[in-house]
């Protein structure tokens, strides 16, 4: 087969792929039209990014005095001598001499502000990134325990891994939120990070163990024969190689972590999923909102796998 022939055959398969994807999309679209549902995609973008502008609110009760140029206003407190100068707005909501109360909207400052879905995405990102960091630490320590010579360390690590892998994450989240969170007086966010880190750590431990066991025995022997201690050999010789071998598995686990973080929405945490639920209840557009939420998760997981693929390429020298 010539090169040109091979290329054209390749393009034929790409075309088939595109055709199938488009057929599926058309099917979903047709199904959407058939059900008794009025689509309002135009409602969704405002919940991701809001173009309504930022509301400037009254810091206390008082009377409004407008500036001569219409670009500033002064608020004189009702009962004290306090005054506040408010500038930099684009649209006034109140009039001259009007009595306003603390928290009332005085003016609107134009600009793009994150909507609830964007805030949810941000919380999910923070939650996942922090959990990932701690899961990695817990996983490496537990993984080292799994391969340790000491029977106590081995049994402890095995118990941790089995207990975590044998119970549903949702149940663990409830335990962390209601029991651990109460005992240690943790915020919902801290409890969420802890639950996700402890859960993911157990899987990371197994990945780390497999990675360490995949490094040839001779590596440890060579390092020890040069006088390195067990931990020095682990740190400088074994773990760097184990990490490289387990990078694809770790990436998969961390993509799971991002997705699993949606379960913490059962606690009082407005992550992307919880934000989606809230937006659904105010828009009555569940189809559009959940498609949008799914796309936003895909954005996070896609970015992570892209980054891991680049990291793999950078480490692929030997």
């Amino acid at each position, binding site marked *: 087969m010539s090169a040109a022939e091979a290329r054209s055959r390749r393009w034929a398969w790409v075309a088939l792929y595109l055709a199938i994807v488009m057929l599926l999309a058309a099917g979903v679209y047709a199904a959407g039209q058939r059900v008794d549902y009025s689509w309002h995609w135009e409602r969704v973008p405002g919940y991701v990014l809001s173009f309504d502008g930022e509301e400037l609110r009254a810091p206390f009760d008082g009377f409004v005095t407008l500036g001569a140029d219409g670009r500033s206003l002064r608020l004189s407190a009702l009962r004290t001598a306090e005054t506040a100068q408010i500038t930099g707005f684009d649209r006034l909501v109140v009039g001259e001499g009007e009595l306003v109360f603390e928290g009332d909207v005085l003016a609107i400052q134009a600009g793009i502000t994150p909507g609830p879905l964007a805030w949810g995405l941000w919380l999910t990102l923070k939650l996942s990134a922090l959990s990932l960091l701690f899961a990695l630490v817990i996983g490496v320590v537990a993984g080292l325990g799994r391969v340790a010579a000491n029977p106590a360390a081995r049994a402890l690590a095995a118990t941790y891994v089995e207990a975590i892998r044998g119970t549903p994450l949702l149940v663990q989240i409830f335990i962390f939120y209601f029991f651990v969170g109460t005992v240690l007086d943790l915020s919902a966010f801290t409890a969420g990070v802890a639950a996700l880190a402890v859960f993911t750590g157990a899987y990371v431990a197994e990945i780390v163990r497999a990675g360490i066991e995949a490094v040839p025995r*001779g590596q440890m022997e*060579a390092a*020890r*024969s*040069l006088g390195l201690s067990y931990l*020095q050999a682990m740190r*400088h010789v074994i773990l760097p*190689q184990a990490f490289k071998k387990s990078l694809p598995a770790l990436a998969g686990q961390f993509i799971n972590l991002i997705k699993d973080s949606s379960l913490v929405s059962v606690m009082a945490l407005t992550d992307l999923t919880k934000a989606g639920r809230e937006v659904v209840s105010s828009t009555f557009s569940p189809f559009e909102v959940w498609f949008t939420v799914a796309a936003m998760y895909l954005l996070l997981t896609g970015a992570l796998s892209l980054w891991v693929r680049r990291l793999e390429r950078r480490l692929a020298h030997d």
Partner: protein
Amino acid sequence: MTETLIEVSAVSKTYANGVVALRDVSLAVRKGEVVCIVGPSGSGKSTLLRTLNALEPISSGEVRVLGQAVHDPRTDLNRLRAQVGMVFQSFNLFPHRTVLENLMLAPRIVRRTEAAAARERAMRLLGKVGLADKRDQHPAQLSGGQQQRVAIARALAMDPAILLFDEPTSALDPEKVNEVLDVMKGLAAEGMTMCVVTHEMGFARAVAHRVVFMEAGSIAHVDAPERFFGPQAPPRLREFLGQVLHG
């Protein structure tokens, strides 16, 4: 009388499944001596070598290296091992590090040598094994013979009093064997104390001060090479040598 660096006294080793690897083995190696250990596979020669730096635990007896009881739990094994270099059949270079980093790793971590001093010493040793131009390559980019020469330089980087070789040429293509043996001959000529498990009878005959013949976990015969390979050797040894040399 030069000092004895290695003293193996009545060492036995039995695996948990009852297999006897070493049976009442005693051997002393003096400073500057080159001892080659030969024997059929499974005779315990590698096991014996690996008991010398406690990569292999023993069941009974005692191994003293540089005056210290190797298998005594109170011995600072890391310190002792830093003075006993080991070269493996499968090289065991660190694949994630460059050649130069392979040589600098242990001095930097174990001896806390300054980077500049460690680098200078590493470069000198790479020059000695003829691989100074490979310093920035990774082990996978080198031939087997080159990797084994780097492994020897890596062992030398810790300035060891003793070098142990565990079948250093067995994993090499035949045409790469001599470049490694030449480096080892150079070390022997400098007076390095060496224990070499090998199948290279030519090397043993030319370089060793004494040759040890092991069979079924015991030392069956020890002699100077001219007599070891001569007509006065016991029949079983001559049979083995005949198989190795003409097989």
